[in-house]
């Protein structure tokens, strides 16, 4: 038998472990449904959703290594196409799928978060507030220099998203009133890319998901309203959108469990932790 000291240590460790497991178990109830499951979930689409997807996937895969979740970006357009064609199980969108899209693919939509789209500039840019009419002129190419807005004498570098982006769609519709975006704008392919582009360009201006905003860039007050979670929630910031996960037809099996997980208290906690607004 082991010497007395070790036995005591072992016993203490055993108690501690049991306590730990109980505590962890209480919090992991939502993940229990994934125990004993096996299979793959393929997700693609909106880039704003990716941090939430990653956290959820990590939790699920840690508890059950037999489940494989793969996450790709591409933008809302990609999400819809790929889930519609059966290439992925879940297609994320940062905009509501259109009636044609729903009809064509038989999509079922699930909104698990609310987000906004805010305008951002470099931290050192003195221009931190804009009128909507000016924003439209900047993006159409009418205003080309920061000095026209009270800033330094520097050309404005406009950044926009690619065509598949739901963020772009929402910004264009609600922020620009569907006015044209200049062809000369630099194109970036995700929310993350937009953030790092503007963070590295003192003369840049772009738009990004409110949940993605951090202190690497400065948000721009639009018509007197700051783009924050609070203003999106109470409706004073108008450029808002839901974060959707869409499936082709009703979700079944593992996919259904994943979507239910997003709506569970634990899932909604992940949503809030990533800077979005919970729907429940």
């Amino acid at each position, binding site marked *: 038998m082991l010497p007395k000291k070790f036995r005591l240590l072992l016993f203490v460790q055993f108690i501690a472990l049991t306590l730990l497991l109980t505590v962890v178990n209480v919090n992991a109830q939502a993940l229990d449904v994934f125990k004993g499951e096996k299979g793959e979930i*393929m997700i693609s689409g909106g880039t704003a959703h990716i941090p939430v997807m990653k956290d959820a996937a990590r939790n699920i*895969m840690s508890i059950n290594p037999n489940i*494989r*979740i793969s996450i*790709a970006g591409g933008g809302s357009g990609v999400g819809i196409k790929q889930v519609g064609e059966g*290439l992925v199980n879940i297609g994320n969108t940062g905009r509501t799928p259109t009636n044609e899209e729903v009809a064509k693919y038989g999509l079922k939509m699930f909104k698990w978060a609310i987000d906004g789209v805010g305008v951002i500039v470099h931290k050192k840019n003195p221009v931190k507030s804009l009128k909507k009419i000016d924003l439209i002129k900047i993006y159409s190419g009418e205003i080309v220099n920061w000095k026209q807005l009270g800033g330094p004498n520097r050309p404005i570098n406009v950044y926009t998203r690619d065509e598949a982006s739901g963020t772009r769609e929402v910004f264009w519709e609600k922020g620009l009133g569907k006015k044209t975006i200049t062809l000369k704008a630099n194109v970036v392919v995700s929310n*993350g890319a937009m953030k790092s582009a503007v963070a590295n360009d003192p003369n840049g201006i772009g738009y990004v998901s409110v949940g993605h905003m951090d202190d690497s860039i400065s948000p721009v007050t639009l018509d007197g309203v700051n783009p924050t979670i609070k203003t999106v929630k109470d409706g004073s910031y108008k450029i808002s959108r839901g974060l959707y996960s869409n499936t082709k037809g009703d979700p079944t099996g593992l996919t259904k469990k994943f979507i239910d997980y997003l709506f569970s208290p634990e899932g909604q906690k992940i949503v809030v932790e990533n800077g979005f607004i919970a729907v429940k």
Partner: protein
Amino acid sequence: MNRLGEISVTFFSWLCALSLVAALGTVFVFLLFKGLGGMNLQTIFGDTNAWDALTLRKAVFNGLFPAIVGTILLVIISVVMALPVGLAAGIYLAEYGTGRAKNIFSLSCDILAGVPSILVGLFGFSLSIFLHKYISQNIYPCLLISAASLSFLVLPYLIRTTQIALEQIPSEDRLTALALGAGRLQNIFYVLIPRALSGIVSGVILSIGRCAEDTAVIMLTGVVAMAGLPQSLLAKYEALPFFIYYISSQYTDMQELQMGYAAAIILVGICAVLFVAAFFIKNRLVERMLFRI
């Protein structure tokens, strides 16, 4: 040409040589400077214990391990798919091809080698959609499709190096076995290929390097930002070059950027090792052959 002209040409030439070396040096020094600090177990395995990750007991989330494994698997599968075809076609061109036919095959090989890699990726993508629609709903862009597309990409290199290696065998060695009564195939397999082995192997290594570094093809055929270790050939996967591309525009904090630098160093390291290995193998094999004879 007067003295001034000569001096300026010489000066220009030296300037170019120095600029080239300086540019390459800057790239390497910059990478090492920014990335060496991040080369630790955490960058590769994230928060998971290294032993658990290597024995596949736990998944790695914040590390480069899945991407490294993805790249390795990709390379192995592509080369396995391309090697037999490349070898066989190279043998045909060197030993059996004649005149016009040889010219045409050779031309098509050059064209394939010159096709932009994005078009090969597009072809692979279209192929996967085609297969998905008409053969099986289970086929998506995945590891297998990417590996197949990469094999198409490196096929011309394998064919060419095999062909050249075989053609460079002096005619005396070519005829010896035949004179002793061996059949054509026996000659090829027992005499010619062993003699051309160093050339063939360096071609294989060149292809391995090409598969490891290519990004355009895999971008369109199945690589994703997060997938863990690929469970099957029909699964999505991660890869180092895609990780570097993806993180370069979408890093959210300095730690992720550090991982990008580390990934770049690892990728360059892999390619450098392959290069040196090719050089070594070429020479050692040649020595071995000489001693056997």
